[in-house]
């Protein structure tokens, strides 16, 4: 068995491809835990960022700067009474959040955090992602119906129409990116890892390929992905000022939190698709221009530097705490948090140095993996910020306007971009 | 204050400035009135408008001014005609308010009031009529759509029925409520305990 574990460390393919079920399982667990943690962190980050957009502080009481707020929220939601309306369809009501959650988490099987850092590399990875993401709407639709109440029903209707419509534009935008993979090699690929590798081979992120074609497709995809995840300004399905809470009006407690979990997991998932297709996935900036070992080493320092900077921010925060005794505990808490971040930074630094300076397989591989994951996560977090930014800035679209944007604006644009991409591709090659 | 100008004032051509100018002497007149420290009383209102209607309807109509505010006291039978004429011919196109006052000791217990305004003349007038308890009165919804809710409120609060109202039902109080609270015989602490017990499940009725 140890041999079995070690054998993968030298492998350059994903555990799914290698048929390595142990590592596949490990990856699944890591991803499950990681995504859950990311959702929790996102929860905190969204509340803080949104608050600062809106000249307020956001959570400040539970833990220093509200750092423990998500935990408190999670506890509260778990302990809350779980209400199932008397007239609801009990079984469907029970199963609906699970459908959404399963769909959102299944997507992560094919998301490549690195050249071999994925559960599996399917040769239809993109299609798989789109397909499974489209299952998420089933959870929403069924939840709205099972609640046996008007607002959730209307939310479900809106959401089903919306998500089916935007899938079309989304799919076309994706196809234009997939088309770009076939440019130099002649054979395109739908594999997520293949797409990133293709960008590496062609030496350009697809967002900049055939400028502005790639960029337009990317923008269309981003709009469609915001709509697909039911986020502002396309949050028709929940639209709290119109439908109280849309499809999850009747949900409470743990079940409601499952919906939230699914929503945020789906957000991260679609952002991952965007990053993979257009922003070079796990690739660090300029991998072709700056590819000397020295550059490798410098870029390897980024993860530890990031954590170091976060630790520094936390230290400054701890020092700036008011002198009042009430803040003493918070100050200590923040200092501990800073220390934790600092330790992580130190660990990453050690690994980076060890990985780049020695030939030790484990350290080198770990270092490489951390680099890939770091860049990937960084790009995805920018998208997360974009989601919050949009939410803070824009009013909500009306339903018919939303459909108009989907069918009359995005669909033609993506079609034209697709055709132009094909024509330009043929001309160039 | 601008109502002090004896009606019908010519419609002010463009300007608020002129109105302002008119308002000042009126205020001065009021100050003079106060200086004499006499209790103001309603005085007859004379104007071409009043003359016209008096010729038409005779004794069913009384026109008075109190504190610079014009009002008609009109016989109940003339109400729909007068209101319609006021809107169609005299440009009182804005029905500000419809309300009622209860005088339990009178034979005809209720004053019903229409408070009208003319954008063109910048002038207000009140039309008042007296009806007995249980009497109904023609609805003016067909004259001013805004009368809809206002009449419903009068019905709700006083129990005065408006004939021809499209949907006369209670507006502020719940549908099954008993009593009309703005009548003088309805005590301030009084409420429909039965309704509260049945619909809110509060045993004490409070």
């Amino acid at each position, binding site marked *: 068995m140890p041999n079995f574990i070690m054998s993968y460390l030298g492998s350059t393919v994903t555990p799914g491809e290698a048929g390595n079920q142990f590592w596949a399982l490990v990856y699944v667990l890591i991803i499950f835990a990681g995504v859950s943690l990311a959702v929790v962190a996102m929860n905190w980050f969204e509340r803080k960022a949104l608050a600062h957009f809106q000249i307020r502080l956001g959570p400040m009481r539970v833990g220093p700067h509200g750092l423990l707020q998500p935990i408190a929220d999670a506890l509260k939601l778990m302990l809350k009474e779980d209400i199932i309306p008397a007239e609801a369809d009990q079984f469907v009501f029970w*199963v609906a959040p699970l459908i959404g959650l399963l769909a959102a988490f299944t997507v992560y099987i094919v998301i490549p955090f690195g050249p071999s850092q994925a559960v599996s590399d399917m040769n*239809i990875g993109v299609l798989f992602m789109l397909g499974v993401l*489209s299952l998420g709407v089933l959870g929403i639709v069924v939840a709205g119906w099972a609640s046996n109440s008007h607002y959730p029903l209307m939310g479900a209707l809106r959401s089903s129409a919306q998500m089916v419509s935007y899938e079309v534009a989304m799919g076309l935008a994706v196809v234009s990116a997939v088309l770009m993979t076939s440019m130099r090699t002649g054979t395109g690929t739908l594999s997520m890892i293949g797409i990133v590798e293709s960008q590496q081979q062609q030496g350009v992120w697809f967002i900049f390929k055939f400028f502005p074609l790639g960029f337009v497709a990317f923008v269309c995809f981003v709009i469609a992905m915001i709509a697909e995840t039911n986020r502002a300004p396309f949050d028709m399905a929940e639209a709290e000022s119109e439908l109280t809470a849309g499809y999850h009006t009747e949900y409470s407690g743990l079940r409601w939190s499952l919906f939230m979990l699914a929503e945020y997991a789906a957000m991260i998932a679609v952002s991952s698709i965007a990053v993979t297709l257009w922003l070079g996935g796990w690739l660090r900036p300029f991998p072709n221009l700056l590819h000397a070992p020295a550059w490798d080493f410098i870029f390897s320092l980024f993860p530890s530097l990031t954590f170091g900077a976060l630790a520094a921010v936390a230290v400054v925060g701890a020092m700036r705490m008011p002198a009042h005794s009430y803040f003493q505990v918070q100050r200590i808490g923040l200092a501990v948090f800073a220390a934790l971040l600092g330790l992580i930074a130190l660990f990453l630094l050690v690994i980076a140095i060890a990985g780049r300076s020695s030939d030790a397989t484990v350290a080198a591989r770990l270092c490489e993996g951390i680099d890939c994951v770091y860049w990937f996560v960084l790009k995805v977090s920018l998208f997360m910020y974009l989601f919050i930014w949009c939410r803070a800035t824009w009013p909500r679209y009306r339903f018919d306007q939303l459909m108009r944007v989907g069918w009359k604006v995005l669909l033609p644009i993506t079609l034209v971009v697709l055709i132009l991409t094909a024509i330009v591709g043929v001309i160039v090659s | 204050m601008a109502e002090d100008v004896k009606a019908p004032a010519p419609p002010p051509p463009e300007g608020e400035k002129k109105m302002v100018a008119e308002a000042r002497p009126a205020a001065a007149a009021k100050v003079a009135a106060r200086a004499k420290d006499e209790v103001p009383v309603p005085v007859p209102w004379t104007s071409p408008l009043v003359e016209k209607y008096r010729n038409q309807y005779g004794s069913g109509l009384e026109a008075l001014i109190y504190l610079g505010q014009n009002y008609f006291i009109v016989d109940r039978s003339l109400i729909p005609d007068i209101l319609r004429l006021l809107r169609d011919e005299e440009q009182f196109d804005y029905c500000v308010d419809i309300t009622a006052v209860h005088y339990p000791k009178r034979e005809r217990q209720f004053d019903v009031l229409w408070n009208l305004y003319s954008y063109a003349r910048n002038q207000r007038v009140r039309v008042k009529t007296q009806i007995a308890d249980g009497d109904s009165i023609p609805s003016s919804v067909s004259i001013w759509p805004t009368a809809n809710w206002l009449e419903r409120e009068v019905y709700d609060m006083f129990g005065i029925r408006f004939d021809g109202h499209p949907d006369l039902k209670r507006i502020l109080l719940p549908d099954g409520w008993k009593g009309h609270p703005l009548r003088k015989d309805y005590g301030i602490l009084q409420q429909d305990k039965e309704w509260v017990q049945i619909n809110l499940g509060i045993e004490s009725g409070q």
Partner: protein
Amino acid sequence: MNPGLHQALIAVDTTSIGPGMAPVATPFFFYLLSGLAIAGGFLVSTRRNPVHCALALIVTLIAVANLYLMLYAPFVAAVQIMVYAGGIMVLFLFVIMLVSIERASRDRRFNRFWPVGLATACGLMALFVSAFVKGRALFPDRMIAIPEGSNTQQVASMLYGEAGRMGQYTFAFEIASLLLLVAILGAVIMTKKKI
């Protein structure tokens, strides 16, 4: 079920994966998915509540999609999920939600033609069984070979053809797309009073 099929499945897996860990659980998943698909189908035809039927149908569709995956036809599997489970079933649900469920569930479940339906089902069953029994000769155990190139490319070349050569099904494919276009136009004309 059939020892030959077991052999076939295991053989396929080991050959395709090459030096790795033999996926011992494959027959288990095969039976599991088949069972799910059959159970889903059974529920579709027996449940009174149309939404439950739709959910059962989704289970069937997903189980079948996974069977495709096991047969190394991932493209078909993905399309199955995306088009059927993700698209068509959502529209199904969309329609069902607008139907009065109370009335629908009060209706008789089977109309008076049910013996005809049953007979048809039995006939189909017999056809399948005979094809399976006789097919042992036609499809030898190890005929499921992994074709060259990826599944997506194979589907594409069947539909659109290789360079310079029309594909096997190009004509049929285009006809089907025309049919769909006509259907869309018909739907638009039916719902719009004036265009």
